[in-house]
């Protein structure tokens, strides 16, 4: 480099440095690999597959512990593990147990739960659909919910699957399954589905359902039991059964094919009213234990919660795939 070219090189270098300086931090940042933080994805599931599995195992283990517990810690254990219908049902179950019910309470094995779906998106409430196995071998569908950031997932509903029923494919856990509370695109809206099913169980005047496949074991059993019980009462008393959906407990999880799994809660009120010709009646053993009476002279009323799980296609009829019922309270005079 000759002395005559040196100043030109120097001028160019200074200009380059000045340009770099004027480029500011952005260029400097780029040179060392600094970039803006990426935007948050809002259409992914809130937890990954591994976390979902760990949460499901924890919740079902806690739920099993809460259901099996006795003594002072029961209330805290239930509040920690259960919510919604599951909490109500479990509390009712424990009252029956305290009263000496002969019914054996199904306890879901806390091991080997299988997460079927996690709700998509960052909004609350968040839900998980988890398959479990009862000690008697029955497959159970569990609904886990988290109402807000500070509320961990808890068991909100649980029902054993009907024999021969199945749930169509759900979206992969890492993609998440959209919630569809209004039932957009389904053959029947969840609210109407539950109302229609409730009407189809009514006694003495059930209304056939137009959007639900009939012939499932539970529906048949409820209607048959009502008829049998009414017949046994004969001319002494009348029986009515009214089913009322509890819409606040409805959760709708989309299936991959555009359909949905619908969890719902239905309250059943059985009312037995003695006719003038009847002097007294003897209710079933659970009722007697809840009420502390062996005979009734005017009226008996039993409140039962029915947890129902339907699959609803985009077109066609819905199917009842899982159901559970628990006597919650009773009163009589």
């Amino acid at each position: 480099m000759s002395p005559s070219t040196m100043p030109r090189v120097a001028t160019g270098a200074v200009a380059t440095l000045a340009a770099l300086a004027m480029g500011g931090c952005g260029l400097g940042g780029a040179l060392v690999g600094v970039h803006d933080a990426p935007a948050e994805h809002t259409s992914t599931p809130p937890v990954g597959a591994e976390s979902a599995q760990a949460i499901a195992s924890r919740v079902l283990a806690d739920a099993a512990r809460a259901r099996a517990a006795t003594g002072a810690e029961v209330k805290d254990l239930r509040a920690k593990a259960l919510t919604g219908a599951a909490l109500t049902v479990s509390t009712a179950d424990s009252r029956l147990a305290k009263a000496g019910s002969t019914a054996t309470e199904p306890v879901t094995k806390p091991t080997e739960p299988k997460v079927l779906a996690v709700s998509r998106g960052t909004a609350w409430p968040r839900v998980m659909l988890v398959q479990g196995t009862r000690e008697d071998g029955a497959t159970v569908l569990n609904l886990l919910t988290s109402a807000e950031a500070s509320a961990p997932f808890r068991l909100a509903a649980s029902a054993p699957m009907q024999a021969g029923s199945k749930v169509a494919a759900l979206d992969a856990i890492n993609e998440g399954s959209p919630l569809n509370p209004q039932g957009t695109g389904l053959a029947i809206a969840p609210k109407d589905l539950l109302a229609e099913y409730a009407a189809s169980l009514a006694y003495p005047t059930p209304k056939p359902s137009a959007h639900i496949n009939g012939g499932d074991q539970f529906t048949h059993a409820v209607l048959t039991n009502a008829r049998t019980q009414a017949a046994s009462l004969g001319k002494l008393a009348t029986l009515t059964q009214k089913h009322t959906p509890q819409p606040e407990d409805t959760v709708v999880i989309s299936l991959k094919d555009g359909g949905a799994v619908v969890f719902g809660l239905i309250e059943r009120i059985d009312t037995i009213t003695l006719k003038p010709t009847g002097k007294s009646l003897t209710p079933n053993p659970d009722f007697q234990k809840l009420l502390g009476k062996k005979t009734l002279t005017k009226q008996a009323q039993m409140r039962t919660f029915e947890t129902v799980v339907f699959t609803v296609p985009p077109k066609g009829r819905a199917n009842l795939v899982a159901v559970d019922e628990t006597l919650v309270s009773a009163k009589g005079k």
Partner: protein
Amino acid sequence: MSKRVALGVLTLAGLVLAGIGLWFSSHLGAAGSGTFSAKPGGERVVVIEPSVLNRVDGPVTVTATAKNGGEVWLGRAAPSDAHALVGNAGQDAVTGVSVGGWELTTESHGTGTAPALAQSDVWRDTTQGTGTASLTVHQNDAPETVVVATASGKPADLASVDLTWQGQAWAVKALAVLVLGVLLAGAGAAGLWLLRHRETTTTQEARA
């Protein structure tokens, strides 16, 4: 005169670059490890934002040290989840870094207490310890927020919170800046010497 000024500026710029390169090299070391610190105290939970954690592609390690061997808990979550959980609790939000002092820049806001943090299911990863605990944020799930407190949600009595980035390329770049600065300063100084030499020779020839 303008040539002399240009060469002077080149020399000065070279010296500045060399100084910067030397300064970064001494802090980053051969491994290219840079640590920024804050001393938040124990009155608020610490919330480290994506604007700090997710600005480079490499992992960043958050290390929290409690005073007197106290309890410290760290959780990593999606930013919206962490904010929904911490809510308006009193917090020191770590929003940036100051390279000059190798410090984390913080903004204090909010009042009240956070809920029981460890009980929530929003966390992708948590860790806790007595005295110190650390958690590494890989960039696979970016953006993310890290909360430093105690498991119950009470603020941890912190001596320091350190964020460490590891970047081998940074060490190489710092060294390159040092070398470039030395070369530019050398070239500028040489140019100045040659210019002065030529002017001296021209003056002597004119006198002769």
